[in-house]
Structure formats: structure tokens, C-alpha cells
């Protein structure tokens, strides 16, 4: 089932290089099909035609394990909550969730691949991996691209590259991004400075939770702005090297905090852990912030028994859609705050029990 609440997406596994700071990475390729208008001008019959061709392309996947098999879902066949969960797992965009007329999504069993069909472009091939594995994400995206291309002729010009609905994506059509947890840079008031220097280098920054410049839970997404005139490998290498520099800065900020403010830091982490393991009502904003403190505590060895995967899972599971999916019904805001607190309490206590019994 698409967007199953029981299954974790590949990117939520929490393991890989620099997983103490890099939560996940993503590579997205924008592609359009020759001879069809872009999705916002498409007729029903043209959208159907594209979906049919994609089904044919998927019929030629060859023998694959369930984890690697790709399946196409029409968005209109999915319940509202299922679509909401797909957004919260970052598998489709918020706009796409509402695109019931022509929209579809192709998901690979392990949810490492999601292809948005008839969003702003005919195809948005996305690969999401845990930690810093941009090269792997690019390779996989390119393989999926090759598979789909066997049944489709892409709109491509030798001069301008892959042609996209918006000129900001033309060329490679590639948007690579990393999702970073930067609590120490935020605590030491360095996030603003970092933000402006990164933008000057031609990258974009946004908070994953919260709006505008506010980044609830200290989680930021960095991505390339330029898609034309640079090769995919260059774009990815640039983002990787910028990310390596940010990791370096976050690590030294953490080191400094640990040296200069050890007690305050430990106090903050333990208070967060105390609230999360005892609270009866938690808003999502509060949960996201406290989970950030607990994650930092785990990364610095203050808290034991917790894993990156477990904490990332909690971040996603405590979103409004996911909570309702777990409860299998609509919940009011007040009901969700109660469910959220209970879920976090249970998960953190189970982790603590596991740590005691195994250690």
C-alpha cells in the first residue's frame, strides 16, 4: 500500500556517512515528454496517455525483489490521509497531494525512489537516501531515468538540455539537496551568517519544519540553485563539498559547546528528554524542538540507547497526517497532541528498556 504507516522510507534508516549531522539527502530529476504540453496545459486524454506509457515502462522492470519493484499509484485512488502521509515522508510535494485530476506517483518498494507524475513537470524522479550519499542517490535516479526513457522520448535540446516547465530547472533538471541537523550552529547564533554565505555560493536554504527563515528543530535543507551549464557530477560534487564544510562548522560548534557550556548543554538535553518521556500533551512544534535537543544529546553521547533512525522515525510519525493514519481516523488538534505525547513516551521508553536489557 502506498504511504503505509507501518513502513519506514529508505531515507529514515539513519545510517551512512555523517549521519550525526546529515539526516538525509535527495536527488531530483525533472523530465518532460516530447510532444505533450507541460502538465498545467494537459488535456485529460494526454494525461491518461502518459500514465499508460509509464505503466508499459514499468512492465519491463525485469525480476526484482519486492523492495526494488516500482508501482504506479493514481493520487485520486489514495485516501486523503495516505496522501498526507506521503507528504510527511517527503515522497510527494504538498501541491502534488492535491493533484487528484492527473497526478500519480511511482514508488519503489523501499521508498528510496518516488516519481511524481504530472506535477509541475511530467516526471520528477526523486531518490532519497539516509545520511550523505548523494552519489548513490544520483546513480539510482539516473538508472530510473534510463528505465523510463525506454518507453518515452524526452523533451531535450542539445543547447538547453532537458526542457522543463520552469526555466529555473532547465538543463540537467537536477536538484540535489541535503537535510542537516545543525543545533550547535543555531545555539551559537551562527546559522544566520552561514545562511547568507551559502546563498552567495549559489545554494538555497530553507527550514524543513516551520515557515520562512524559521527552522523548527534546527533542521535545514540545502540545495543547488543552478541547473544549466554544469554537469550533474559537478552539481553534486559542489553540494557535497559545501555540505562537508557545514558539517565541519557544526562539529566545531558542538565541540565548543561541550567544552565551554557542558552543564548547560547536559541540562538542556536531559530536560528535553524528561519532558518527552513524561508529557501528556505535546504540540508538533514543541515535539520537533525537543526531539532536536534529544538528538544532539544522543550524538554527543549524553543519552544512550537511542538511534538516529528511531528519532527520525518519531519526527515523521508525530506529524498530523501520520498520527491520524496510525489512529486510523480523523483526530482534532487536541486529540493529536495527546496521541503525539503518548507515542513519543512509548517509543523513548521502549528504547531505554532495550538499552538496559542489552547493556
Amino acid at each position, binding site marked *: 500500500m502506498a504511504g503505509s504507516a507501518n513502513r519506514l522510507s529508505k531515507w529514515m534508516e539513519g545510517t551512512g556517512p555523517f549521519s550525526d549531522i546529515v539526516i538525509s539527502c535527495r536527488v531530483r530529476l525533472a523530465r518532460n515528454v*516530447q510532444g*505533450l*504540453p*507541460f502538465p*498545467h*496545459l494537459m488535456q485529460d486524454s494526454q494525461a491518461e496517455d502518459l500514465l499508460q506509457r509509464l505503466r508499459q515502462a514499468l512492465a519491463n522492470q525485469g525480476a526484482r525483489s519486492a523492495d526494488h519493484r516500482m508501482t504506479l499509484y493514481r493520487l485520486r485512488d489514495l485516501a486523503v490521509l495516505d496522501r*498526507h502521509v506521503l507528504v*510527511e515522508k517527503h515522497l510527494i*510535494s*504538498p*501541491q502534488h*497531494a*492535491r493533484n487528484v485530476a492527473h497526478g500519480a506517483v511511482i514508488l519503489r518498494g523501499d521508498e528510496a525512489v518516488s516519481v511524481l507524475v504530472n506535477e*509541475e513537470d511530467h516526471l520528477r524522479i526523486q531518490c532519497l537516501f539516509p545520511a550523505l550519499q548523494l552519489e548513490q542517490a544520483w546513480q539510482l535516479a*539516473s538508472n530510473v*531515468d*534510463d528505465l523510463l*526513457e525506454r518507453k518515452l*522520448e*524526452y*523533451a*531535450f*535540446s*542539445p*543547447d*538547453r*538540455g*532537458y*526542457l522543463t*516547465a*520552469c*526555466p*529555473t530547472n*532547465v*538543463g*540537467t533538471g537536477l536538484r540535489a539537496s541535503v537535510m542537516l541537523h545543525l543545533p550547535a550552529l543555531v545555539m551559537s547564533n551562527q546559522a544566520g551568517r552561514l545562511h547568507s554565505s551559502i*546563498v552567495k555560493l549559489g545554494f*538555497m*536554504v*530553507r*527550514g524543513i519544519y516551520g*515557515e*520562512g527563515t524559521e527552522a523548527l528543530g534546527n533542521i535545514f535543507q540545502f540545495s543547488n*540553485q*543552478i*541547473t*544549466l*551549464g*554544469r*554537469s*550533474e*557530477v*559537478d552539481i553534486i560534487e559542489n553540494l557535497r563539498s559545501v555540505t562537508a564544510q557545514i558539517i565541519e562548522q557544526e562539529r566545531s560548534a558542538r565541540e565548543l559547546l561541550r567544552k565551554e557550556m557542558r552543564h548547560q548543554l547536559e541540562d538542556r538535553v536531559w530536560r528535553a528528554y524528561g519532558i518527552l518521556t513524561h508529557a501528556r500533551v505535546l*504540540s*508538533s*512544534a514543541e515535539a520537533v524542538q525537543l526531539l532536536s535537543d534529544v538528538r544532539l544529546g544522543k550524538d554527543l553521547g549524553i543519552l544512550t540507547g537511542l538511534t538516529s533512525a528511531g528519532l527520525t522515525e518519531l519526527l515523521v510519525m508525530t506529524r*498530523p*497526517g501520520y498520527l491520524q493514519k496510525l489512529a486510523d481516523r480523523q483526530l482534532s*488538534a487536541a486529540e*493529536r497532541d495527546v496521541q503525539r505525547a503518548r507515542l513519543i513516551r512509548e517509543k523513548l521508553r521502549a528504547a531505554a528498556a532495550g538499552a538496559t536489557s542489552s547493556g
Partner: protein
Amino acid sequence: MLCQECRKRPATVHVTKITDDQRTEMNLCEICARELGEVELLTEPKFSLQSLLAGLLAHEASRAERRPVAEDRCSNCGLTYQQFTKAGRLGCSQCYAAFETRLEPLLRRIHGATAHTGKVPAQGARPRSRRDELAMLRHELEMCVRREEFERAAELRDRIRELEQRSGES
């Protein structure tokens, strides 16, 4: 107006939902709207990129209004350049050719470049010739050396050598 959910903060998000022909209106503050999951489905976080493009296009649109020119239209999909400047989206792949002269400066401002380099479809359009690619890479190498980006220059040099060797073989 106060937010109907918390009754504390001013309502700045107005949501109209139509479910089963029932029209419900909600007036919420941003915090409650986000809590209710309404905002997540209604708005996309603002990218600097979108505002960049909007800024560039707004500038062009105001110029066009002051000095109206013969309307540019893509003969394939019927989209006018005016419509593009308003929506920020082209209508079909042929729009790129139809509006070529006007898109070129725009692409230069967004990407700092106008020519594609990178992956090419296996079928369909033909890749650019090796000679073109070599000329482009040599130009890029020169620019990198001027900007003292030596790491990138070394990569380009290796790529050029590789291409030169391959064209020597074939």
C-alpha cells in the same frame, strides 16, 4: 478577527474546504493552521529561487506594459510570453524555441550560463558533437583559470584530455 481554534492569536490563514458539497470556512492563526495540517497542504515554503524568478519576470512584465510589442506566442501550445511572465511556467517544450531570444538573457541571469552540459538522453535528440563539447570545455577551463578555481580547472583539463583521446581513437 481571532483564530477560531485558540481564540488568542489573530486569524491570518483563511481556509475554504469543500467536502461532500459542504463548504466550511476556517479562520486560523498560522500556528493553529500548521497544527491542523492545513497549511502544509496549502502552501509550499518559499524558495529563494521562486522569488528570484518572480522578480525577474515582474521586471520584464512592467517593461512590456510600458512599451507594448507585437505579442509573442508559441505556435505549438498557444501560450503568450505575457502569460509566461505572469505564471512563471512555459506551456510546452517548443516554447523554448518560440521565445528563444527573450529566454536567453533570463537563463543567463538565473544560471549564469545558457548552454547545457551533462547527461544526454540515450535516444531521441542527438548529443552535441564532440567538437562542440571540446570547444565549450576549453572555454570553461579558461574561465576557471581566470577565476583561480584550480580544482575545477584540473577536472576540466582531465575531461578534455579524455575526450581528445577518444576522438583520436575513433
